[in-house]
């Protein structure tokens, strides 16, 4: 169907990746030309445009039309019977030049292409190239009679499968494609296929591949640097848009086709030349690293970074596939990658032993509070109702301070004082050196929120349904905001607004000076996760399983990201991504700009601990008792450390050491 409309004199507005299968551009950019296209998607070409030959039409008194095989951008292909062989039914493919272009220039070009295809094919002899039997003109149409190759094209095979194809199957096809590309590239003059894509590769029932549609293959004339730009968007290499078509362009297109087959992500649907942003293993972890490497190198943006020849690619593929017979594996083959991924998991486990304990300190009950570090001391609350101060270097006990109930609140430091809440309902401020009480502020309910201090104001929520701003110096109330349900989320102050979540399903933005609500946004379940901010956005998770990004100024939701379970873990912003855990066992890295997943690390336990980032590594705990260390960029596991019980405390990293509490009553210092 003609998708590129021709306008009277102006530009053409063309459309569609998938729709643009073949495009033509003259060497002269001022010369306008509609672009012949081909497509199988609806709406179908109008019947009167095709003028299909009826069955039993006789051509050259020799070829009888049996039916239509397919419609291309410039041609119709029929199944025909060669009547010269009277006793046997000898079938062939008859390609009819299909002139739809309204202007004579394009028709001339199309004819030239067709002529060229015929001439080209006639001189070639390779099992992966269809043989040509005849070429003639009749009733103002041009026909090419070719070997009828039984089989399906790779695009159809992929569509039928509906998921990525197996690495070995694709690999063995790729080796065969390399063979035929090498054959073409070795011709004198060199022949560039120029339109390598899954729909131009047929697979016969014997699993042999055959290249079809040589309509745009081009003899490489080294004296002519700029050629006609033809190819298929999505598969065509960048340089082809400048009219450069050479061997390396075919290798790029091969890479694009392999990427498509191995990931089932159609490059025509993607932004052109973005393969490097979509590494194969991100889309299909079953593919081996070495296969990914080969394909990604084929897809290098700069031609000089790609392989130098199809031969070289074939060698690399043979190494990956272990040199097994190229013609022996049916495309319904098994999935050998399970073994590879098992090995990778084992390797990960081995790597995990790289975690190293520096010291641990045992308290008398569970530690849910997260440590706070200041001037050589570590402070942490314990469910045994004490706040502990430990020596940072060796984990030796320095002092403790008893409250009247368990402490799940995490301490904060301000002006030589350590400030924290207790489930006894009070906020305490102690001298950080000796644990001497400076002030106590009593609220009407247990405190599970942690204090956050900015400009002398201590922000903290309470189960008495209030959120408080307390004078850090005197321990007196500056303002409070009361609603109908507890505040267990902690505060995130950001210039003149302090954000926090509440069990009443709202995330609030209070005016720091007076506690007036500047913005609020309702979600579907309570928020116990503590918000994090960047310049423009506030991030927070909710028990409703969603992770939210809100506009700081208005409180409106910019985007939200769904996980499989409640989000209790508080986010951490690093560069252009925000990181958080979910009770669904996933640890997520999400792009701030788009709300799209960058990567996800999955474990089989809830992640309620909040992440902490340092020097390209991100740390968090999980209810399986492990502390995890992942690479921030990729989410690759660097190490994990097993403690004796769930880790809901959030790690802190200082000078190459990770400090974290565990429900096994211990505080751990691990080598980062």
């Amino acid at each position: 169907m003609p998708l590129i409309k021709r306008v009277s004199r102006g530009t053409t507005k063309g459309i569609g990746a998938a729709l643009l299968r073949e495009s033509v551009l003259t060497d002269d950019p001022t010369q306008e030309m509609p672009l012949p296209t081909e497509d199988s998607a609806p709406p179908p070409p109008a019947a009167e445009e095709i003028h299909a030959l009826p069955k039993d039409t006789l051509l050259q008194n020799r070829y009888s039309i049996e039916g239509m095989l397919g419609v291309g951008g410039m041609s119709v292909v029929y199944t025909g019977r060669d009547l010269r062989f009277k006793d046997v039914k000898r079938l062939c493919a008859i390609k009819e030049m299909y002139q739809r272009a309204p202007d004579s220039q394009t028709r001339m070009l199309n004819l030239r292409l067709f002529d060229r295809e015929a001439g080209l094919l006639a001189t070639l002899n390779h099992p992966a190239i269809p043989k040509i039997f005849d070429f003639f003109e009749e009733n103002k149409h041009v026909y090419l009679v070719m070997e009828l190759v039984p089989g399906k094209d790779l695009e159809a095979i992929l569509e039928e499968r509906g998921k990525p194809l197996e690495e070995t199957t694709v690999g063995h096809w790729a080796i065969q494609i390399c063979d035929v590309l090498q054959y073409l590239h070795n011709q004198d003059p060199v022949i560039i296929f120029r339109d390598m894509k899954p729909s131009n590769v047929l697979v016969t029932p014997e699993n042999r591949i055959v290249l079809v549609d040589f309509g745009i293959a081009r003899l490489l004339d080294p004296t002519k640097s700029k050629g006609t730009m033809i190819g298929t968007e999505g598969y065509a290499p960048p340089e082809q848009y400048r009219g450069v078509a050479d061997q390396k362009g075919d290798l790029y297109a091969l890479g694009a086709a392999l990427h498509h087959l191995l990931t089932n992500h159609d490059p025509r649907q993607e932004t052109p030349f973005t393969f490097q942003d979509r590494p194969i293993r991100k889309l299909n972890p079953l593919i081996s690293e070495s296969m990914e490497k080969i394909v990604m190198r084929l897809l290098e943006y700069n031609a000089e970074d790609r392989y130098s020849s199809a031969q070289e690619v074939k060698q690399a593929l043979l190494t990956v596939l272990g040199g097994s017979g190229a013609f022996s594996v049916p495309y319904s083959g098994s999935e050998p990658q399970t073994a590879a991924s098992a090995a990778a998991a084992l390797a990960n486990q081995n790597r995990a032993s790289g975690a190293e304990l520096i010291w641990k300190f045992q308290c008398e009950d569970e530690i849910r509070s997260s440590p706070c570090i200041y001037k050589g001391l570590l402070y942490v609350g314990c469910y045994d109702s004490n706040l502990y101060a430990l020596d940072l270097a060796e984990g030796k006990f320095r002092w403790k301070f008893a409250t009247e109930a368990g402490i799940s609140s995490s301490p904060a430091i301000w002006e030589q004082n350590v400030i924290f809440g207790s489930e006894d309902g009070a906020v305490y401020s102690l001298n950080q050196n000796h644990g001497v009480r400076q002030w106590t502020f009593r609220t009407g309910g247990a405190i599970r929120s942690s204090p956050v201090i900015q400009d002398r104001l201590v922000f903290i929520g309470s189960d008495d349904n209030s959120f408080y701003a307390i004078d850090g110096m005197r321990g007196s109330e500056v303002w409070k905001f009361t609603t109908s349900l507890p505040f267990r989320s902690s505060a995130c102050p950001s210039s003149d607004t302090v954000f926090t979540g509440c069990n009443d399903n709202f995330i609030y933005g209070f005016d720091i000076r007076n506690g007036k609500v500047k913005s609020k946004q309702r979600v579907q379940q309570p928020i116990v996760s503590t918000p994090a901010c960047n310049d423009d956005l506030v991030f927070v998770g909710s028990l409703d399983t969603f992770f939210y990004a809100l506009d700081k100024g208005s409180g409106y939701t910019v985007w939200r990201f769904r996980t499989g379970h409640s989000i209790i873990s508080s986010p951490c912003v690093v560069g252009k991504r925000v990181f958080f855990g979910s009770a669904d066992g996933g640890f997520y890295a999400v792009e701030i700009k788009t709300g799209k997943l960058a990567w996800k690390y999955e474990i089989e336990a809830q992640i309620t601990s909040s992440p902490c980032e340092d020097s390209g590594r991100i740390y968090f705990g999980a209810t399986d008792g492990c502390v995890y260390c992942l690479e921030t960029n990729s989410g690759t596991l660097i190490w994990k450390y097993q403690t004796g019980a769930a880790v809901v405390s959030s790690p802190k990293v200082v000078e190459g050491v990770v400090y974290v509490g565990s429900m096994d009553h211990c505080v751990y210092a691990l080598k980062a």
Partner: protein
Amino acid sequence: MSLSSELILASSLAAPLATGAQDQTAPNEVPTEKLTPSEDLKVGEQTLAAFGQRDIGQLRQSNQDNFFTLVASLPHEDSELGFGLFVIADGMGGHAGGEIASSLAVRTVAHHVLANFLLPTLSEEPTEALQSLLVEALENANRIILAQARRAGSDMGTTCTAALLLGPALYLAHVGDTRVYLLKPNAFEQLTTDHSAVGRLLELGQIAPEEAHDHPLRSQLYRSVGQQPTVQVDFLYQRLGPATKLLLCSDGLWSMLPDEQIYATLTEDDKPTELCSTLIKQANEAGGEDNISVIVVRLPSNERLS
């Protein structure tokens, strides 16, 4: 269509469905000079105002561009929040297909946002995230246009760029090569990326801007609304900060005038009406090779936040 008639009246839809080359000037949102107190979102000196205009150009037989503008003020906690919805679409496809596609896109997107955001907000009902709201709006347009195209056996499609202004931030959903520019003090920033292969090559430095400008494939899109069962929609969140104006336009403007000239024109005046006609005049003088449509939004000064 269950929108309240007040909303429709207060807004301006560029063209009734497929009336061909009827023109041109749409009534503006908030009159820029004779501001009545209720229409004036005045805070400080700069007020929020928008105007849209389209022109057939010098060469085309029909106008395949369409747009929508709406400016309003929403009650928000103790104050107001400026609200603006701007949609622009450049259609393509023969036999009036382009006009139909762009008109459908503009109407569908505007309807979706008003029905799923503005009305619920006024009745204090929760709304979905703005990203999914806007992306769904364009996806809806895609579905509706594709269905209509299949019925009619047409190949029509359109670009579509929607900008939602809400207080201090701008939310964009975008497919194609209609563009959004932000005018800041001493800077002119193109917020959208053209979904054309040539645009992509330019982004990668594979071709020079001059080459891109004359490239025969420059208006060939790899993404459009209404031509595939699914469409990938770009979403962008942008803080307005100290920006003073917003420009939405079709390629009939940006391919005729260099960015420098558009920038210079936009800095000359503060009246969206004047700016629209000046820009269209300049594009016509430069050749007017395609339909030209322009929406100019004058942004309120940002001080109101503090």
